[in-house]
């Protein structure tokens, strides 16, 4: 069972109170972008065994979207953070580095 702390209401929400929103920190490529960028934006996703960043929504709760950093293999949660950011905050990255030295995910490490 996955339990994530919603950064907006502080509830330690069990997975069934949440809705998974897919990969985090996607950069949108829309009209006018190259075919490659557009294809990457639409279809290409990470599928890591280990550190992963995702979007979640506290759907049966305060209703807000937020970010979560977790390990797909152990279900360990490194932390959750605001949706109003384009990259994981430093304290979360530091926490991951302490537990998974040498990790990388897209262009973050």
């Amino acid at each position: 069972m996955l339990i994530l702390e919603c950064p907006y209401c502080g509830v330690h929400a069990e997975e069934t109170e949440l809705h998974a929103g897919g990969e985090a920190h996607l950069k949108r490529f829309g009209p006018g972008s190259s075919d490659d960028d557009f294809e990457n934006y639409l279809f290409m996703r990470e599928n890591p065994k280990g550190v992963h960043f995702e979007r979640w929504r506290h759907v049966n709760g305060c209703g807000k979207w937020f970010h979560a950093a977790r390990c797909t293999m152990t279900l360990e949660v490194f932390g959750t953070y605001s949706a109003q950011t384009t990259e994981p905050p430093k304290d979360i990255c530091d926490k991951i580095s302490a537990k998974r030295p040498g990790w990388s995910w897209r262009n973050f490490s």
Partner: protein
Amino acid sequence: MSNAVTALNGAKSTGYVTVKEAPLTGMITLRGTFASKGFAKMVKSVFGTDIPEQRKVSKGPEATVLWMSPDELMVVCDYAAAQDLVAKATAQLGDEHALVVNVSDARAVFTLSGAQLREVIAKEAPVDMSQFEMGEVRRTRFAQIAAAFWLEAEDHARIICFRSFAEYMFNLLKNASQPGYEVGGW
């Protein structure tokens, strides 16, 4: 003026916890920037209480204010007073970027009474009821539907859900509280 009725005409079940559909209840959704002076002032002067802290309930003389999200409050008040309060709040907000809506007829309200009500809630919602405190409000799900609840006393809880789910909610609570199905958690 139409004759307003509740969804289930005050349905009641007396199991090991008593489940009742509450009489017509006034409910007002407020959305706005809590940090904005104008918004906070309006809440204070119209509803007689401060904006509650995160996940808390604050009580004025004629209204209870529930913290629903970082930009949403729910006011619970007398059914007949709701429309008036909405008008007052709207007028006072002026140009403030905010929303005030009377949702009284869009929601159903249930009460649970009995010493073991924490157990009945724990059967339906993924909430650690051993940690749940008086003065706290929790939005969650009851089985498959969204709901919010808070305790008015140790043996008295109030639950709000969408009106269209009233029958589902009532049957759910009735089933969970039927005599002989006590777990003995509380």
